[in-house]
């Protein structure tokens, strides 16, 4: 206990690692090292997160009072549109795969890099090109259709910059496709000897499932954007009912990607939670095979439920019934995961470090988000709450309460590996608590607002909704503080944090068998895997004559 290890004098000679091997802007902008590209992504998505957060702040400020006093209706339309587009396409979708996935997929399977390092760099540049286009679009007028850009409003009526925003999303989409392609090939072809499919960490299974959605879903939104752009510029009539076209076709094509896109956000987060819960309960994950397969089945079922976004749009009752049933079916693999995580906790020796707090937050919030999703999959209730704040609250519980909590948990869990430094644990626990409280305060009132009938996407509302809206705005402020804190102490720790040991959590997994931070090629020599995933019982068994 009282083993204060005598620190070597300040400025020890640093080992060569991926961060200090080369210096200079060029060594970053032209790098093909997956770890450096991951950090490039980290900086870019954090930038866009704060842009999207700024729009969210403006929305919440406007909704503080029933009257439309901060912005005009047109501006408000742009605010929620840009909030959605930035957060979905430029933050949530790349967040976990492109940052943590990029960093960890090769390390977890014992590879030196992704299969196509140059394509990996290309995907970051595509993301940046898309991002610059999006910024330009926002600064020169923005878009006011909602992130869904439904036709014919988007093609025949609005005067805002649909084509440019579409192009930005189109380009960023190819970045996402290339990341998914890289992951699939890497997981198939680059595994170290002994790293069989049944020994893969669940983080890898989750990213495999995510990649399937990225490569099969994203091209559909790409072609849909092409059609919208062509229709808008040339008035062809493909989606215009006046010319014989069908706006519902647009909605089908749009949601064919955009519903599975939700699983692009949540599946990697589930992968992170599996890693964290196993590590901080010191147990093998309960039902490994079921958790692995449930990721794949979420990806498969996720492609078959898109029309539940269209129950009131005029699709046939029979189609609605089938899509309702299939939407319920997605709940099965999701529940399998939640129950298996819970069973993993059972009789585990649980530690409440910051990553685990985020994982617990994920469990609670994802469960609420998932269960309210079942309300929405039910045809009768959906008619009542379509386009109300109930829907807004539901998908924020999944995307923010689920995906973002997992992302933050993962950032804390792997930060010592990424940066080679330890973050201040007590601040991190405090931040996790603030995020959890702020999140619930922001979004739980919105369930009630929605159920009482407050529609989404309006900048004014009747005075009786004010109390709940004030609660929500107050919560958003707390949440904002909760998000700023980790950014501050992560940056702080890069300079002042204690040097991290190679395996600060005593975690299983190949990535922890590398130095912190890792060397450029990750492993001194190709690792050979002879153990099962999450062998915590073995790790914690008393070592002969050793202690940690």
């Amino acid at each position, binding site marked *: 206990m009282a083993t204060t290890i005598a620190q070597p004098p300040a400025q020890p000679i640093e080992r060569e690692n991926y961060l200090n091997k080369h210096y200079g802007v060029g060594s970053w902008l032209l790098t093909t090292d997956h770890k450096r590209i991951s950090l490039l992504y980290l900086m870019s998505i954090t930038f866009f997160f704060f842009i999207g957060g700024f729009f969210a702040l403006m929305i919440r400020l406007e909704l503080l009072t029933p009257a439309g006093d901060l912005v005009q209706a047109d501006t408000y339309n742009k605010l929620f549109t840009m909030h959605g587009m930035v957060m979905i396409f430029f933050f949530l979708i790349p967040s976990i795969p492109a940052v943590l996935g990029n960093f960890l997929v090769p390390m977890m399977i014992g590879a030196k890099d992704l299969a196509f390092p140059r394509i990996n760099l290309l995907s970051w540049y595509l993301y940046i090109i898309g991002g610059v286009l999006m910024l330009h679009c926002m600064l020169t007028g923005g878009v006011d259709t909602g992130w869904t850009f439904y036709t014919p409003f988007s093609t025949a009526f609005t005067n805002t910059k649909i084509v440019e925003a579409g192009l930005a999303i189109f380009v960023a989409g190819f970045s996402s496709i290339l990341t998914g392609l890289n992951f699939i*090939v890497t997981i198939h*072809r680059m595994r170290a000897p002994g790293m069989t499919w049944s020994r893969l960490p669940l983080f890898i299974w989750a990213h495999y499932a995510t990649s399937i959605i990225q490569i099969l879903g994203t091209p559909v939104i790409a072609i849909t954007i092409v059609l919208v752009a062509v229709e808008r510029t040339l008035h*062809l009539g493909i989606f215009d009912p006046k010319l014989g076209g069908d706006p519902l076709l647009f909605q089908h094509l749009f949601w064919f990607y955009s519903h599975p896109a939700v699983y692009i956000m949540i599946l990697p987060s589930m992968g992170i939670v599996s890693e964290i819960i196993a590590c901080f309960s010191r147990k093998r994950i309960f039902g490994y095979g079921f958790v692995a397969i449930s990721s794949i089945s979420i990806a498969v079922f996720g492609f078959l439920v898109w029309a539940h976004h269209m129950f009131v749009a005029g699709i046939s009752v029979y189609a609605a019934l089938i899509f309702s049933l299939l939407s319920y079916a997605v709940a099965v693999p999701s529940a399998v995961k939640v129950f298996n995580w819970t069973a993993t906790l059972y009789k585990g020796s649980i530690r409440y470090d910051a990553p685990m707090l985020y994982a617990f937050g994920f469990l609670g919030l994802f469960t609420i988000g998932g269960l309210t999703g079942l309300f929405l999959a039910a045809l009768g209730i959906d008619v009542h709450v379509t386009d109300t704040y109930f829907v807004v609250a539901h998908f924020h519980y999944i995307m923010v309460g689920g995906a973002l909590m997992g992302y933050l948990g993962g950032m804390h869990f792997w930060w010592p590996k990424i940066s080679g430094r330890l973050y201040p644990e007590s601040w991190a626990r405090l931040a996790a608590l603030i995020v959890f409280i702020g999140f619930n305060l922001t979004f739980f009132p919105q369930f009630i607002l929605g159920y009482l009938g407050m529609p989404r996407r309006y900048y004014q509302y009747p005075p009786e909704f004010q109390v709940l809206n004030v609660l929500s705005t107050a919560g958003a402020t707390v949440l904002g503080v909760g998000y700023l804190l980790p950014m501050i102490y992560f940056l702080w720790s890069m300079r002042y944090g204690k040097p991290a040991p190679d395996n600060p959590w005593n975690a299983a997994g190949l990535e922890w068998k590398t130095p912190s931070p890792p060397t450029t090629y990750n492993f001194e020599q190709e690792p050979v895997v002879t153990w099962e995933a999450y062998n915590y019982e073995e790790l914690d068994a008393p070592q002969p004559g050793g202690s940690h």
Partner: protein
Amino acid sequence: MDNPALLHHFATEEQQRDSANLGMWIFLATEVMFFGGLFCAYLIYRRWYFGDFAAASTSIDAFLGGTNTAVLICSSLTVVLAIWAAQTARRGLLLVMLVLTMIFGVTFLGIKAKEYKDKFDEHHVPGASFSFEHVPIPGHPLEYADPKHAQIFFALYFVMTGLHALHMIIGLGIFAWLLWMAWKGRFTPEYHTPLEIGGLYWHFVDIIWIYLFPLLYLIDRHP
């Protein structure tokens, strides 16, 4: 023997080749979904407005389209022969086959351009100047096709064939690069992965055309 083309993060040449091939196949799956959205839109409107689509279909030149189909099938053959030439270390044949493939590709685009020009002259390009008046529906000589619905056909025709042509142009770029690599003697019986995956791409673009041709040109044609 040390292969300069073996990248640092691969253990063996076989692993590198397998990765490249798998990567290309996955990219093609992406492409299938990309074109799939268009095929889906096409099939829905074709079912709704069959007569109008059939009438519009008769106005495009099936002979030129058929010729182009033959041209592309020939180009696929030359691609396969190019790969065979690389496998059997016949550099001369490899260069000839690559050049032939590119000639077929350019021929296809030339014929396509001619078709587009005809459509432009006939005011069949969707937009303000579009006109498709008094064209009877095949099999129903007294009924005229609805110009609005015919416009949807032409919109899809131009988007689908246009996107296909764009893929052909990219393919020509890839093959120009392959030709340059082959000229420098980079391909050996042991290492010709770029030829294989470039060939996969080329075949894929051909197959898209094999579907486009009957769907667009031969809807309800009777000799």
